[in-house]
């Protein structure tokens, strides 16, 4: 069940990233039509993503909620790379990397990817 939810979160996130604008639940249901998901399932998935801080929820027209990603996919990848290269200032033992291979300018470019919002 956990795995299935994780997989759905990922699929929902892909939909939100593709649209690039706040999306209503029923649009996500439609985009994932081949999976034949219930409206409430998709809403649960989106709310889980919101709780984890990946998705922003805003009130739209009528009573519908609209969802939008908090950051782009590239920003999340850049954040992981900063973690992986121990450049985030968090304690370095969280991850074990194979070898350091990043130069100052590269590290700055990674940080900038996060600042451009």
């Amino acid at each position, binding site marked *: 069940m956990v795995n299935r939810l*994780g997989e759905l*979160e*990922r699929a929902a*996130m892909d939909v939100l990233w593709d649209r690039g604008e706040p999306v209503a639940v029923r649009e996500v249901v439609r985009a994932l039509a081949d999976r034949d998901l219930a409206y409430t399932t998709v809403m649960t998935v989106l709310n889980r993503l919101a709780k*984890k801080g*990946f998705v922003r929820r805003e009130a739209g027209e009528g009573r519908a909620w609209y969802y939008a990603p908090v950051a782009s*996919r590239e920003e*999340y*990848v*850049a*954040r*992981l*790379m900063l*973690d*992986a*290269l121990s450049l*985030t200032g*968090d*304690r*370095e*033992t*969280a*991850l*074990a*990397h*194979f*070898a*350091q*291979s*990043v*130069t*100052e300018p*590269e590290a700055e470019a*990674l940080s900038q990817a996060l600042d451009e919002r």
Partner: protein
Amino acid sequence: MNAALHVAGTLALCTVVAGPLAGARWVWRAPRTGILLWQMLGLTWVMSVVGLLLALGLAPYDAPIPVALGRWAADAVRGDVTPLAVLVVLGLLSALDLVIGLLWTWWSVLRVRRRHRDVLALVARRDDAAPGALVLDHPHVVAYCVPGARSAVVLSSGALSALAKDELDAVLGHEHAHGRERHDLVLLPFSALCAVLPRVRLVRSAAQAVALLVEMRADESASLRHGALPLAAALRRFGAVRPPEGALGAADIAVEARLDRLAGLPPLPPVLRWSVLVAGLVLVSTPVSFLVF
């Protein structure tokens, strides 16, 4: 005073040995033995610091530390406190500080990892070229392990395209060894010590030495399965991506050391490995015997 002298001697020995051991090459020939020795040395050092303070503070009771501590506490409750109490309190506080430091480090590491896993679940993909690993689409050459009960090995697409098949296998073997042998737990007490005593150079160099040994152990495990040559080639590739800029950082020195080792340092003979472990056990038993009995 007997306890204080013994513990002080052990503390001095640990402190004197740690410096040379941090720079020693012979431990590279038996990384696992080296890692164990460092654990024992660290434990001895910490227990000796606490033990010395307690032994000095409790000297007037002329009794084993646990017994004397009980009497001291009873006296303190009655308001019968000598100036030496400062040492006892200091000893207890430093023990508490170390435990809190360890828990705090553990908790913050877990938090970083959990967040990292959550994000990975959204943006990483599987790739047939790297079975058992997660792939991140990014040009930097990166390979790492997210340790935990279920560890994850992650590669960047940059690493995927930079490495030949046998090199890739060796790198994956290296990362899986980190996860399988829970090297993060080996490093944890030393990170905690660094957090509690940030300005002590010896602690930092000990932590670096253990980190290097952990990498060497993962290298050892990977090269047994996939050969030393592909692993060394992969390490060079990781280094080669970086244009040389000024002085070598600690990470580069570590890579040089690992390449040195892979180029053919002979393993330490078992007799020596066992002698080292016995010496470590003798060392650790001194403060234990005074703190517990």
